[in-house]
């Protein structure tokens, strides 16, 4: 477990979550939240060791194609259909420090907006060469990247005519269980972002803009794939300079 040892032992509690920045549990514009939202006040408590700690995911668990959704489900010699893109960026904490060893898992619809799932009923076709899942672990500087196809927009039952803008779902596992986060990445220039009831659960426009990945022309690979940059920020840790010394020592 050298990856464990290389990581400095961090024992500070995490910054409190800004609950006004995140979507509230009850957001009636997104109808499913009505019956699935806690209605009583959350119990607020500073972190204990149960929240400060978290498991380690080693790079050795990754397969060669885990971060290549164009090929990780495709038959040999074939590839997924769609606009080839690279999504890359950094995982930082609220203090701006890179989060090394963060596990990122992503899933998405295919180029036509169809998910590979038995409950999915959209009439767009499946792509036999596209599964729709992948994962990566950040390096020592917090960097990650993966190859995929740009997902299509799709309709969903909420209002009569609600559509999701093109998006990629991200699950992020940092260093502590309290940092656990699931979010979605959107694409620069998509007018549908501002029509989406799920995006609209987020009360602050700046928080939405933080979910929109810009086209990263500099990192686009000529004759191959365009790049989008998506940085992710996890909760920061308090400094432990003071907290680690019991009174009187």
């Amino acid at each position: 477990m050298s990856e464990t040892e290389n990581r400095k032992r961090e024992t500070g509690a995490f910054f409190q979550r800004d609950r006004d920045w995140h979507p509230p549990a009850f957001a009636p514009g997104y109808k499913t939240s009505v019956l699935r939202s806690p209605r009583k006040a959350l119990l607020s408590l500073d972190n204990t060791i149960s929240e400060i700690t978290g498991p380690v995911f080693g790079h050795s668990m990754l397969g060669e194609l885990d971060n290549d959704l164009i090929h990780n489900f495709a038959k040999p010699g074939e590839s997924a259909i769609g606009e080839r893109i690279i999504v890359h960026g950094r995982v930082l904490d609220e203090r701006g420090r890179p989060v090394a060893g963060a596990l990122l898992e992503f899933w998405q619809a295919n180029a036509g907006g169809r998910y590979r799932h038995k409950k999915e009923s959209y009439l767009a076709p499946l792509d036999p060469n596209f599964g729709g899942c992948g994962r990566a672990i950040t390096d020592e500087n917090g960097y990650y990247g993966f190859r995929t196809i740009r997902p299509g927009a799709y309709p969903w039952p909420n209002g009569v005519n609600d559509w999701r803008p093109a998006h990629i779902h991200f699950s992020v596992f940092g260093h502590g269980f309290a940092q656990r986060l699931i979010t979605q990445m959107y694409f620069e220039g998509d007018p549908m972002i501002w029509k989406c009831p799920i995006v609209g659960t987020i009360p602050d426009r700046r928080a939405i803009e933080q979910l929109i990945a810009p086209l990263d022309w500099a990192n686009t690979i000529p004759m191959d794939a365009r790049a989008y940059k998506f940085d992710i920020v996890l909760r920061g840790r308090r400094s432990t300079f003071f907290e680690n010394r019991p009174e009187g020592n």
Partner: protein
Amino acid sequence: MVQDLGYLKETASQTAGPYVHIGLTPNFGGISGVFESDLGSAMVNDETLGPRIAVTGRVIDGAGAPLKDALIEIWQADAAGLYNSPSETRGAADPNFTGWGRSPTSAEDGTFVFETIKPGRVPFKNGRLMAPHISFWIVARGINIGLHTRMYFPDEAAANAEDPLLQRIEHRHRAETLVAGGQSPNYVFDIHLQGEKETVFLDI
């Protein structure tokens, strides 16, 4: 003007949506061949120390129906009360116990299942011991930000009575929502999102 603190804002949460199983438990979701196995599906092996337990349960919505598209993660100490984490400074945890598990709720009846061990006690900030507990995190379609809660054990009444988190719950009957049913080694922890039995969720 004063100096800028320079802090970044945490990335906003978005719902895991109806297809979270594609991303987090793809083999369960019918996508095989991408990852060998689903992460978090095995917490113990033959060498793991401590009494084996099973924790099953459901996540129940405001209409009384179990969620069949949810995903649950748990995190817990080993039998000696140590976390298998770089942030654990009190000693080395059991290398044969991950402490972390992930389970989808089933499409048939919405149950989740964890095969694990009973955790030891870990200290609160002031050194007082907390009662044995398992941390839970719940995501699903319709849940805009992952829900944190804890499961305590029904056969630990004395430890539960002095647990600093349970003591913080103002209405005593609500503390019972965090105590599992069943008995050793088969515990049952139903999580109620709303209603009279709404589980105490944590802003932690």
